[in-house]
């Protein structure tokens, strides 16, 4: 390699070729451009005229310069110029490659892999042993140094993780023994614990850090605010151009699609906020937010119940009395629900029409529309009932819309007329949806309705009083659920609605939206199972048989190998764990001065060979154009064509190539031509050709139709409008036309063409039921616009288009099918046949192997036997007559059918 300033050459001796340029200059100057030949009658007038100007004798200087330039570019190009050549690494000793491997490095992972590959290649060339550590997925023991080539093979297995390197891992646990150089592929984010690791590796040897210059972007958890969803956006360094945040969700058909897209401006401090305003129906469908164009787990914000607002119908039995709001059965419910649920307060029948997620019946005894409510429950509704005087007074012993059967009346504890004290609530049992909630001391129950004791009462009870009597019972109903609070929803029977426990219980019942960042207390006591996992690139995948996670861990811990980000579910509640832990601030990583920082995007070794050779080629192309113009060969439209060609845009595009050959088109359009569809079987095509040739001869001999030689249809290129009748023999292996071919065939059929399908199987098993050809015909003809078919009626015009025929035999004599007669076809009075199709049947389908019956050899003798003896010859004759009738029918349409009206028309004219 020879260096020349920032330019290096891999093959510098080739540059000696530049010395030959002056000689070339002299040579090129002497050669005039080639003459052009023209035929011109006026040449006699030119004879003897001398040339005055001699400029064109020598090549003009600018053309010479262009050629020299092309040549020089080619010589320099082949000399292998390299911009900013990198000095060859001379380091020795083992090399450790550290990869952050977090979600922040997922967006430019291919570049990282490329950098690692380069490092491994260099190490392999220098014979250095290499070890690789992914900090996000640290090995349990220090990895041994290995051959770089071996490591390179396993490089594909190194993937970014959807979390960040753990802070608490000690560097010694994964750093190998001894001294080594380090190449650290940083993800560009500052984090605690990085300093300790850097210190550890600087003690062992040289450290080189590779870090991209582009900022890291991430999305925080979305929060509902009024009618809007707020999604915080974080950037490690401030950026100026606005970003787009896209909300994805399912559409009504269940397919995932983009629901909203908003522009987000990032402020100077590197934060921004996406405000998504959507109607509640759409908002509840959002499953995740993404920063458009960012492929990383951090740029994905999953949504869960916290972002959903449920539609709750609140129905109470008593009419609201003015001034007594605090006593109204629904007051506390409304207070608890209004901030985080869409409330519907109407009559039950009206509320059911809006398809609510939850119906709360506060103190209603007999449900008016039990059938409709039951139906709604079957489909997955949640019915929550509160007891009260009305419920207690109604006929509750046998009520289907209650989770347990109740005793008549209730009980009153600690009242003026009773013994004992108001009962407190017992701590919630394991397995109850309320498990983990702390019961406040002061909550007491004074009155309640009592459940009828039964063997399954315990299973239905999810909350009980200190003495064991059920307080809240629950039972499944279809896909839905019924929950009964044995107390009132107001403070009449207990002070439960006054306590903070009440909204917590409602939240656990999935009535209330959860706060965005749930506290450990909120989730305590529940085991969440992973539903979906987020990978490092931000793609969601379903998990199977993954271990459950404690709610406390979910609320506290940042994501890590034990707690992968994704969706977690418990008790019908869904909780999202995003890759970006709440409260994480993004800041760019800073490195001390003694670290070699290899920022991505600095001047890199660039090979200039390709652009130089391309320039040489372009110059030669220009030279060709200039030479043409100099010699007068370039004028007008040819310039445009040449320029277009030079730009690689051939003006003739593909449709022109597919157009029908002109001679063939003229041959087809010149005269009536019978055509057949190639079957892919050469022998069958020969029979078709011979058959149509025989039919053409008969037509020429007997009628005024004198067809030319038959043609095979080339469906891809031929214009079918030029054909009238296409004979299509079907066998089990007939190739299927392309979609474009089908479009052409349909146009052909609509335009009055006819296809004669021939399964050649004598219709052995009835139409298309079992033979292979029949099945193939069904498959082939399915995309065609074929009208309803019917067996050929005896009065069809095909039976009298030229000859009077009763049967349509070929080599066999089976029934044939044509377009069905319209339903209103009636036999006119005195007419021999009905006025059937006012047009030509687009298809005739049969299995009589007509081509074989028509086929003639070169001498005009029939090729295939038909039947036996004179009866067979008679059948062949009838077959020919069918062919004649068919062609006549195609060419004249319903002319013969109309002929029967002629006497009537003449008679009318006579009057």
């Amino acid at each position, binding site marked *: 390699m020879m260096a020349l300033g920032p330019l290096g050459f891999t093959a510098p001796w080739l540059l000696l070729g530049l010395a030959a340029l002056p000689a070339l200059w002299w040579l090129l100057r002497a050669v005039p451009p080639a003459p052009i030949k*023209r035929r011109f*009658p006026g040449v*006699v007038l030119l004879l003897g005229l001398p*040339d005055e100007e001699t400029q064109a004798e020598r090549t003009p200087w600018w053309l010479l310069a262009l050629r020299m330039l092309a040549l020089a570019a080619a010589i320099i190009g082949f000399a292998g110029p390299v911009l900013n050549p990198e000095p060859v690494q001379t380091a020795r000793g083992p090399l450790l490659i550290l990869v952050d491997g977090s979600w922040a490095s997922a967006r430019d992972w291919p570049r990282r892999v490329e950098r690692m590959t380069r490092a491994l290649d260099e190490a392999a060339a220098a014979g250095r042993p290499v070890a690789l550590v992914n900090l996000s997925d640290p090995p349990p023991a220090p990895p041994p140094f290995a051959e770089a080539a071996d490591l390179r093979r396993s490089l594909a297995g190194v993937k970014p993780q959807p979390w960040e390197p753990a802070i608490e891992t000690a560097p010694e646990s994964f750093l190998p023994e001894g001294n080594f150089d380090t190449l650290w592929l940083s993800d560009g984010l500052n984090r605690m614990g990085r300093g300790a690791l850097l210190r550890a590796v600087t003690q062992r040897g040289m450290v080189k850090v590779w870090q991209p210059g582009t900022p890291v972007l991430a999305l925080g958890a979305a929060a509902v605010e009024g009618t809007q969803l707020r999604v915080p956006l974080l950037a490690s360094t401030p950026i100026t151009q606005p970003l787009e945040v896209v909300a994805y969700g399912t559409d009504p058909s269940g397919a995932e699609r983009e629901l909203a897209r908003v522009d987000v401006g990032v402020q100077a401090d590197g934060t921004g906020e996406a405000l998504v305003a959507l109607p509640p129906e759409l908002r509840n469908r959002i499953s995740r937010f993404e920063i458009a164009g960012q492929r990383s787990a951090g740029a994905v914000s999953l949504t869960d119940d916290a972002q959903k607002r449920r539609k709750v119908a609140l129905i109470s039995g008593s009419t609201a009395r003015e001034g007594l709001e605090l006593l109204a059965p629904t007051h506390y419910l409304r207070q608890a629900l209004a901030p985080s649920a869409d409330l519907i307060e109407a009559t039950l029948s009206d509320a059911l029409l809006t398809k609510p997620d939850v119906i709360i019946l506060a103190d209603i005894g007999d449900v008016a529309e039990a059938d409709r409510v039951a139906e709604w429950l079957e489909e997955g509704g949640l019915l929550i009932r509160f007891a009260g005087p009305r419920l207690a007074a109604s006929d509750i012993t046998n009520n289907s819309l209650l989770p347990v059967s109740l005793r008549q009346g209730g009980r009153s504890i600690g009242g003026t007329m009773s013994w004992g004290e108001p009962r407190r609530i017992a701590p919630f049992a394991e397995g109850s949806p309320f498990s983990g909630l702390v019961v406040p001391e002061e909550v007491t129950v004074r009155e309640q309705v009592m459940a009828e004791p039964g063997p399954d009462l315990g299973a239905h009870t999810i909350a009980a009083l200190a003495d064991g009597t059920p307080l809240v019972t629950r039972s499944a109903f279809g896909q839905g659920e019924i929950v009964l609070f044995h107390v009132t929803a107001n403070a009449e029977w207990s002070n439960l609605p006054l306590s903070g426990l009440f909204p917590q219980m409602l939240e656990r019942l999935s009535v209330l939206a959860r706060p965005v960042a749930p506290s450990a207390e909120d989730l305590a006591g529940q085991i969440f199972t992973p539903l979906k996992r987020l990978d490092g690139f931000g793609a969601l995948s379903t998990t199977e048989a993954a271990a459950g996670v404690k709610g406390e861990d979910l609320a506290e811990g940042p994501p890590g190998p034990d707690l992968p980000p994704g969706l977690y579910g418990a008790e019908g509640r869904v909780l999202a764990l995003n890759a970006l832990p709440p409260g994480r601030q993004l800041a760019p990583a800073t490195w001390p001065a003694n670290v070699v920082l290899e920022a991505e995007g600095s001047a890199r070794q660039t090979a200039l060979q390709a652009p130089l050779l391309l320039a040489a080629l372009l110059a030669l192309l220009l030279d060709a154009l200039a030479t043409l113009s100099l010699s007068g060969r370039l004028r007008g439209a040819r310039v445009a064509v040449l320029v277009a060609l030079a730009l690689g845009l051939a003006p003739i595009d593909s449709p022109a190539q597919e157009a029908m050959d002109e001679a063939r088109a003229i041959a087809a359009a010149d005269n009536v031509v019978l055509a057949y569809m190639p079957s892919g079987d050469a022998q069958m095509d020969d029979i078709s050709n011979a058959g149509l040739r025989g039919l053409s001869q008969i037509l020429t001999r007997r009628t005024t139709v004198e067809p030319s030689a038959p043609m095979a249809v080339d469906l891809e290129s031929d214009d079918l409008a030029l054909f009238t009748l296409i004979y299509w023999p079907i066998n089990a292996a007939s190739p299927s036309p392309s979609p474009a071919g089908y479009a052409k065939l349909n146009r052909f059929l609509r335009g009055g063409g006819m296809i004669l399908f021939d399964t050649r199987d004598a219709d052995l098993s009835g139409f298309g039921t079992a033979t292979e050809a029949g099945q193939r015909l069904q498959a082939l003809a399915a995309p065609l616009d074929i009208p309803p078919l019917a067996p050929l009626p005896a009065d069809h015009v095909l039976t009298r288009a030229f000859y009077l025929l009763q049967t349509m035999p070929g080599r066999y004599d089976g029934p044939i099918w044509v377009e069905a007669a319209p339903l209103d076809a009636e036999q006119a009075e005195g007419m021999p046949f009905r006025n059937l199709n006012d047009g030509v049947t687009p298809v005739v389908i049969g299995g009589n192997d007509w081509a074989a019956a028509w086929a003639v050899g070169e001498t*005009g003798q029939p090729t295939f036997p038909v039947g036996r003896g004179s009866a067979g010859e008679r059948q062949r004759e009838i077959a020919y007559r069918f062919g004649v009738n068919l062609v006549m029918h195609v060419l004249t349409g319903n002319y013969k059918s109309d002929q029967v009206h002629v006497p009537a028309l003449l008679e009318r004219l006579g009057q």
Partner: protein
Amino acid sequence: MSDPVQDAAARDLRRAAETEAAALPALLIAAEHLANTVQMGGHGRRRAGAGEEFWQYRPAHSGDAARFVDWRRSARSDTQFIREREMQNAQSLHLWVDPANSMRFTGAATGRAARPEKRDRAQVLALALGISALRAGERVGLASPLAPPRPGKAHLLTLAQALTAQSSEADYGTPDLSAVAPQSEVVLISDFLGDPAAIEAALTGVAEHGVKGALLQVLDPAEEDFPFDGRTIFTSMAGAVRFETREAAGLRARYRERLAERRDRLETLAARAGWAFSTHHTGAPAQSALLWLHGALGGAWR
């Protein structure tokens, strides 16, 4: 059962003949169309003679046969009158269209501004002139290939066939006017790029016999403008003449000078013989040329 192969051959021949025959009416129609644009009047010799139109009554002389007396006119006076008719002796028109290869030139064979070959234009003009002459009752023939002048519309087909059939291997044509009858009219349509001496000889040969006529030079606009440049080898249409230049554009002015010179010479030649001369370009509509031809010959017909 007849032989199918023979069947097919006969059918093809018949179709080919029909196709060929279809071209003739096209030429005829084009020529007739063109001829329709020229208004034809009745014409006679403006003297008494054999004809169909009434000319004058004159008193009968001695020697006039009694059957020539117009008795109806004579009854109105004392002398006998004889009814004379206008003389209508038909003129013979000889057409000559240059069949040489140079007439096959066209400067723009394809494209939007496509022009016909000079020969096509010359044939249409000749036939159109023939049609209008035949309509006027003249006799029209071809100088070469020889088609003797005959009157009547049926002759038109013969003329058209002879015109389309003629061809020549030569680069430049010379008219052969040996068969032209004295006192007839001749129209020569050519590019007149060949040897002018031959044309001069042919012209003076017939002019001595009182033959009048017109020379129409048909040129392609490219031949007039010489729009070439660069190093070029020019060859004649058959390739017999060849000329190479290094810069065609430099020859343009001198080429046009020579063309003008040639035209002058032809014009002088025509004027000396009492003929008319004009140039027609294939880029221009054919009507103007036909009108000119008609005017140039019209004096004789009227």
